[in-house]
């Protein structure tokens, strides 16, 4: 049984559709991350599920019960807001206990649960602290504890780590996944940060303009982006039109090998930077070395071919060519992905819930 089901949900603001016929299923204990650029309808998705935004058409079901007409406070879902929205006039304990108090739990039970949750999120003993005195990361944890306290059947996170600095974000995302695994929480999170989504989620849903562009496990999406949009959104820039015939594709860069059994005909081609091999100028496509960006374990090198669009390549530190040097490049078939032929044909593939 799916915990959450969206059927053909549409939300319009004026003429623009923030959600356009979205289908989505989330199984119990699953962690799903919705990934998309700002304005793609991610936050609206959460608001529809929470009941803060009524859908213009379509249905929202929680445990197979239609939620139409059920007000926010009776849905039993948790939502962690983008900017936390902690109650400024209450201390940390008061914030975390809020949902329990509303449900009329005893004071002893409230206290016990607050202690337990603050331990869980790594803020033991913070009950009496003022919310305003907390750092961004601490507010984050309090917001999480507050959302978890009433044991929501579905926990939703809106850009959970959006405002935090990078190192804190990386640490927290691992902690979050640990917490959810420990509690068996079902989670629906939205973010624009792919790193966050891939680290957190069992399944990723990429959205574009209110539609689902692709869904799959992080590895699937990463390895086989469904469209040029998804590929570009994931940070891949080596995307070119191509015509595939057999194991070879015709591209602006010349012939590029593709994996066996690739779809044939006019297509869009993605070459991962790791699949771009640098060699002597006389081997393969001649390029001039442009900007080099250091990425820790490797270097991203921008190459300008004499003909055709720029190519990004990934180099080991010791193999980095000098800026301005001339090199020849070739492509490795295993890092080439044949995408759908056009953007429009990359029809939404949402709805195939986890099994």
């Amino acid at each position, binding site marked *: 049984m799916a915990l959450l089901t969206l059927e053909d949900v549409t939300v319009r603001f004026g003429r623009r559709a923030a959600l356009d016929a979205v289908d989505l299923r989330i199984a119990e204990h699953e962690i799903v991350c919705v990934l998309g650029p700002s304005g793609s309808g991610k936050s609206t998705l959460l608001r529809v599920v929470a009941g803060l935004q009524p859908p213009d058409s379509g249905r929202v079901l929680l445990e197979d019960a239609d939620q139409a007409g059920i007000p926010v*406070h009776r849905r039993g879902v948790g*939502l962690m807001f983008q900017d936390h929205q902690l109650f400024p006039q209450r201390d940390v304990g008061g914030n975390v206990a809020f949902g329990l108090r509303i449900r009329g739990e005893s004071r002893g039970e409230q206290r016990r649960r607050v202690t337990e949750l603050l331990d869980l999120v790594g803020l033991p003993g913070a009950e009496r602290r003022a919310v305003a005195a907390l750092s961004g990361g601490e507010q984050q944890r309090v917001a999480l504890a507050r*959302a978890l306290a009433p044991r929501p059947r579905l926990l939703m996170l809106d850009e959970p780590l959006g405002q935090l600095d990078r190192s804190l974000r990386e640490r927290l995302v691992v902690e979050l996944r640990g917490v959810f695994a420990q509690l068996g929480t079902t989670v629906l999170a939205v973010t624009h940060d792919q790193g966050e989504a891939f680290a957190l989620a069992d399944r990723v849903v990429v959205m574009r303009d209110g539609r689902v562009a692709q869904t799959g496990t992080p590895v699937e999406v990463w390895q086989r982006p469904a469209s040029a949009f998804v590929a570009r959104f994931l940070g891949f820039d080596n995307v070119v039109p191509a015509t595939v015939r057999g194991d070879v594709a015709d591209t602006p860069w010349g012939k590029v090998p593709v994996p066996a059994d690739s779809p044939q005909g006019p297509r869009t081609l993605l070459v991962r930077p790791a699949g771009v091999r640098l060699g002597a100028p006389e081997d393969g496509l001649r390029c001039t070395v442009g900007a080099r960006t250091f990425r820790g374990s490797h270097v991203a090198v921008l190459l300008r071919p004499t003909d055709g669009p720029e190519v990004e390549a990934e180099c080991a530190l010791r193999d980095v060519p000098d800026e301005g040097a001339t090199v020849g490049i070739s492509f490795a078939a295993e890092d080439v992905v044949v995408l759908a032929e056009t953007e429009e044909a990359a029809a939404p593939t949402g709805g195939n819930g986890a099994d």
Partner: protein
Amino acid sequence: MAVPVAFFAIFFAYPVAAIVGRGLKAGGSWHWGRFGDVLSRPDIGQVLWFTTWQAAVSTALTLLIALPGAYVFARFEFPGKQLLRAVVTVPFVLPTVVVGTAFLALLGRGGLLDELWGVRADTTVWAILLAHVFFNYAVVVRTVGGLWAQLDPRQEEAARVLGAGRFAAWWRVTLPALGPAVAAAALMVFLFTFTSFGIVQILGGPAYSTLEVEIYRQTAQLLDLPTAAVLTMVQFGAVGAILALHAWTVRRRETALKLVDPAQTVRRPRGAGQWTLLVGVLGTVVLLILLPLGVLIERSLDGPAGYGFDYYRALRSVEASGGTFLVPPLEAVWNSLRYALTATVIALVVGGLAAAALTRRAGRLVRGFDALLMLPLGVSAVTVGFGFLITLDEPPLDLRASWILVPLAQALVGVPFVVRIMLPVLRAVDGRLREAAAVLGASPLRAWREVDLPMVRRAVLVAAGFAFAVSLGEFGATVFIARPDRPTLPVAVARLLGRPGDLNYGQAMALSTVLMVVCAVSLLVLERIRTDRSGEF
């Protein structure tokens, strides 16, 4: 929204319309020609001219004197700042009668300057102008200073780095940002001085008369209702125009300014220039505000037998007070407190509902209602008072003999303050906090109680304090409808001042002091509560 609308319809629009109708209608037809007749009279022309130019000059003087004060209070940290800010606000909530009396004690016959140098300035325009500056100093300091304190100084720094001189940076960056606030404050001051009644009544003598004073004279002394009605309409039109302008500037002020926490922008003054400025402002405050109040207190103690509480003692009984009243004047204190408390409750209910309605809805109609709520601040209180007398005297609303009449009139003046103070706070409550509560299981009512109420509670207290102080000092309407055996403090003061003799004069000073202390104490209590945003006052 229904309650405030009904309240204003019955207790504001109806009485005012009735008075105007009585003045302009005879034999069942309207006589619009009376406008021309009245307005072409030279004495009325003079009143109109004086009203306008004294308001303009008062406004200019207030800005000139108070803007440096606004800067000092916004940007400098110095010991006693909290207290001083409360002190400069005292005049604003002081009844105009007390302000008039204080300046009479300073500048009038037998006043401090008269004794020292034989200088008398009452019945001159200078006394009126000074009293107006005294009264409105806080309006500028609060409205402009409140914003100034939150302006990011780095904006000015950015201009300096880009090559602008100190003055150029202020002129091109800070002033445009402050502009709307300055304009709003100036319009408020203009409004208050344009409709000035108590101060001009006491200090102006027969030579100077504002519209409001003239309306009072025509209504109460000459019983010339047609003239009063025409003047009321003229004042109504002028006030409407000022309020429309004010609403426009306030809306402009809401446009995106980058605001920061005031605590980040204050610092100790540095360098000779800044210290001079600080000392100058403090000197102004002492001379302009503390001196008149001090003299008032001094005069109230300066009895026939040397310093003492003679005048205060005289207030306790009918005989000792010289037979001006049917009841001991001190009873006016209890009357005033009771009336003001009732008026505060009415103003809170009506104003609170109006503010809530204004927060929830938007659009042209609501904005119009917003401006309408401000009208009682400017429409002739005298007209309202007299209108009460002639309209609320028959069933189903026969309130003429009822004590509730006075609080109702006072509440009318209190409501605009309640709305102005509550509105920004209500609007500032983030709707998503309510959503956060809802997601955690709180029903809409529960969410309001848990989220809105705690945040608004403080604003309610502040609004209550202002409404209380304003009700306490209301004079123009109360002077009409307060019954002789139930005078309020300002009415009693005015009546004492209207009688000759040292005893009456001294008692007026004593009673004014009592009134001032009551107002100041309620204000100081407020200043403790109010720590953050300054609303629009």
